């Protein structure tokens, strides 16, 4: 007879078989049996966070930078509710997470027991799927299925809720079954005909553009390689969403920069005027499309996505190719080589006028800003950070706000999985714990959280985690003492009524760093910035870098609310003439 294992042991047996090396968690009453077993499974390392939200974001950073699912272990009640923000964040940005939560014993469920909450009920809308395991014999199978659901198709978070009595009960362990089918939910639904249509559209187009997103990253590093091959083979311009940065080299001439609300002038105008838009793994998010009625009015639209429900959700497309990005691009390339081997040559002439137009847009230099010798401009700080770290294969996380957009605009990424940011949900406080997770996955690499002082305070306690595990993350705070993006919107939309967007009584971040037993560095003047950044890079400990920047700088260019792509505000001067009035005001 095979050995009997407790539920707690089975949790780790499953993790072993799923090749889990790190879990992020926080113990509590309802998961104590699982924590009790931890020491018996040496291949699994637990990272103790300081708040369950931190565990969630750390797991996201881990997953996004490594391509492996992030694993979270939390207790019932507050443990589970604290992780909800991170699960929702992962759901919006399609990050594979497996969250194991403890639950009160089955006989107490529904009695309002201590630290009981309806975890599966609360997390139902923010996970791909979740399970409450009420029978020990279902446990192993459920956990294996959880990993499968999280990592296949469009990735996302899942949760397995395990009552405490189940953790004690014993049963036989079941290994994962291979090649399971999820109710026939396979992922490639395209045919040769679709690829032929795509190639036909591509060869007819005079004003094409690739619009790529996080789906390319999620499809694996190979997808990014193939994307590069496809873009070079076609000679088409390419723009990327916030989540897609890194899938194509940010310093390449064919790359127009990020598109969308704070995207470049050339990217947004090219999206507006193109005659063929090839969306690869992006989802026509409202930050991208601007005014939907006037979104790219003259183009044929192709949408390549693994999730059928992304097709025609916000924007109707002419050709939908449902499948894994990697497979679709690979098939397209193959056909292109076979059928149109001289594509680049024949196409160069056709798109030359388009490229001329793009160069004219480029010459506007929409990311330019007015420099200063007195104060550090936030854009300048990012530029310097980029110049001083670009040879290091660095990993960048961010919080949410102006600093995030400046980082996206001015830090150039050349590889996928190097850029971790909260896009869909826009979670302030994401970056610091995400950096912890990234550093756990890549102990030897440089990991920087480009942060705002308001965001970083939301999860600052995770510095303690970084110190405990010797994770030398660098927290690079663009400190303007304001919730900068809120302040910017108030300036633009609410007659400069800066209601509650100024943070009085900020902590002294240098002293705060010292309190956490890491290193604090402050830069106040542009001339000292480089030296201080170098000092930060040379510090083999966690660092909080307090970069005091211009307090009232706004993030431009910008598509104001309710405007299409071709009506951007370029800078402070432009802002006056394109003031947002009337109805546009009510749009967030």
């Amino acid at each position: 007879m095979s050995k009997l294992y407790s539920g707690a042991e089975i949790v780790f047996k499953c993790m072993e078989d799923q090749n889990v090396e790190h879990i992020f968690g926080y113990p509590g009453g309802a998961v104590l049996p699982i924590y009790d077993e931890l020491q018996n499974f040496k291949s699994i390392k637990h990272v103790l966070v300081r708040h369950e939200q931190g565990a969630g974001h750390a797991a996201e950073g881990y997953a996004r930078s490594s391509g492996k699912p992030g694993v979270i272990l939390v207790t019932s009640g507050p443990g589970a509710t604290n992780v909800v923000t991170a699960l929702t964040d992962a759901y919006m940005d399609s990050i594979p997470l497996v969250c194991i939560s403890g639950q009160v014993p089955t006989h107490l469920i529904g009695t309002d027991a201590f630290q009981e909450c309806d975890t599966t009920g609360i997390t139902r809308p923010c996970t791909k799927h979740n399970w409450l395991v009420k029978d020990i014999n279902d446990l192993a199978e459920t956990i294996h299925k959880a990993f499968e659901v999280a990592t296949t198709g469009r990735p996302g978070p899942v949760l397995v809720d395990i009552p405490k009595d189940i953790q004690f009960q014993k049963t036989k362990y079941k290994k994962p079954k291979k090649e399971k089918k999820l109710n026939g939910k396979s992922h490639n639904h395209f045919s040769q005909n679709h690829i032929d249509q795509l190639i036909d559209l591509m060869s007819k187009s005079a004003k094409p553009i690739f619009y790529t997103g996080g789906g390319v990253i999620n499809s694996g590093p190979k997808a990014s390689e193939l994307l590069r091959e496809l873009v070079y083979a076609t000679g088409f311009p390419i723009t990327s969403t916030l989540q897609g940065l890194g899938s194509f080299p940010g310093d390449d001439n064919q790359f127009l920069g990020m598109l969308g609300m704070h995207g470049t002038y050339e990217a947004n105008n090219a999206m507006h005027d193109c005659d063929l838009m090839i969306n690869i793994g992006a989802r026509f998010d409202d930050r991208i499309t601007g005014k939907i009625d006037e979104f790219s009015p003259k183009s044929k639209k192709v949408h390549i996505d693994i999730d059928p429900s992304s097709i025609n959700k916000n924007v109707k497309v002419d050709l939908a190719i449902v499948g894994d990005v990697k497979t679709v691009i690979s098939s397209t390339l193959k056909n292109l080589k076979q059928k149109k081997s001289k594509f680049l040559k024949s196409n160069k002439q056709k798109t030359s006028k388009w490229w001329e137009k793009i160069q004219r847009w480029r010459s506007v230099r929409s990311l330019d800003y007015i420099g200063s010798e007195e104060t550090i401009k936030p854009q300048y700080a990012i530029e310097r950070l980029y110049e001083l770290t670009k040879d290091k294969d660095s990993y960048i996380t961010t919080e949410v706000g102006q600093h995030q957009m400046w980082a996206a605009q001015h830090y150039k990424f050349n590889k996928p999985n190097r850029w971790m940011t909260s896009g869909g949900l826009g979670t302030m406080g994401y970056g610091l714990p995400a950096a912890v997770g990234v550093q756990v996955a890549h102990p030897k690499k440089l990991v920087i959280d480009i942060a705002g002082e308001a965001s970083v305070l939301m999860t600052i306690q995770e510095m303690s985690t970084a110190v405990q595990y010797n994770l030398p993350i660098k927290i690079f705070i663009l400190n303007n003492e304001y919730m900068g993006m809120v302040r910017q919107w108030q300036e633009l939309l609410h007659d400069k009524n800066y209601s509650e967007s100024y943070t009085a009584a900020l902590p002294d971040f240098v002293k705060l760093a010292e309190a956490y037993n890491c290193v604090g560095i402050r830069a106040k003047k542009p001339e000292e910035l480089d030296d201080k950044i170098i000092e930060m890079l040379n510090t083999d400990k966690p660092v909080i870098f307090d970069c005091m920047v211009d307090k009232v700088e706004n993030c431009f260019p910008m598509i104001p609310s309710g405007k299409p792509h071709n009506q951007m505000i370029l800078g402070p001067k432009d802002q006056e003439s394109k003031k947002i009035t009337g109805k546009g005001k009510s749009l967030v």
Partner: protein
Amino acid sequence: MSKSKSAYSFSNKKEKLDTHIIVVWVDNEAGVLARVVGLFSGRGYNIESLAVAQVDEKLKISRITIVTIGTPQVVNQIKLQLRKLVPVHKVADFTREDKAVIFKEMALFKIVGPNNKLESALKACKKYNPILLDKTKKSKVIQITALRREIDKMSKDLKKFGLVSVSRTGAVAMTRGADIFK
């Protein structure tokens, strides 16, 4: 300039709303109805009526029939979103005008009053397969099966005969002929 719509909003164009009957085959497991219904409420879709019961005891499959109203784009999203749910096996979509599909709802009417009115009530139901389920000197419980609008009409018409209580199910649907939905 102030006429602009939100970066958040959908198109200005008023699209036609259609009534659709969505049939969903799901694993009959805990919380599955909450997943389906939560998807509707969470994404702002309508539910006009809902009928659900297990239809395969061995495979533990339940059949959920949902009547919904939406633009073609929304109805398409409903189907695609439903198909993403892990316990969902298949999703069928019928329009109410579809001649190849039978739709039926059931209603129970309780009539209280003098005998002549009770008889008139039963007579009024004649077209809709009335079944007398309960009878006392003062009351009758009548079951009918019909379309939604017919039951709506009967609920109004029977008032004059002493209708005191109505209980009705959501619509259920089945294709005509030998074919089944795969």
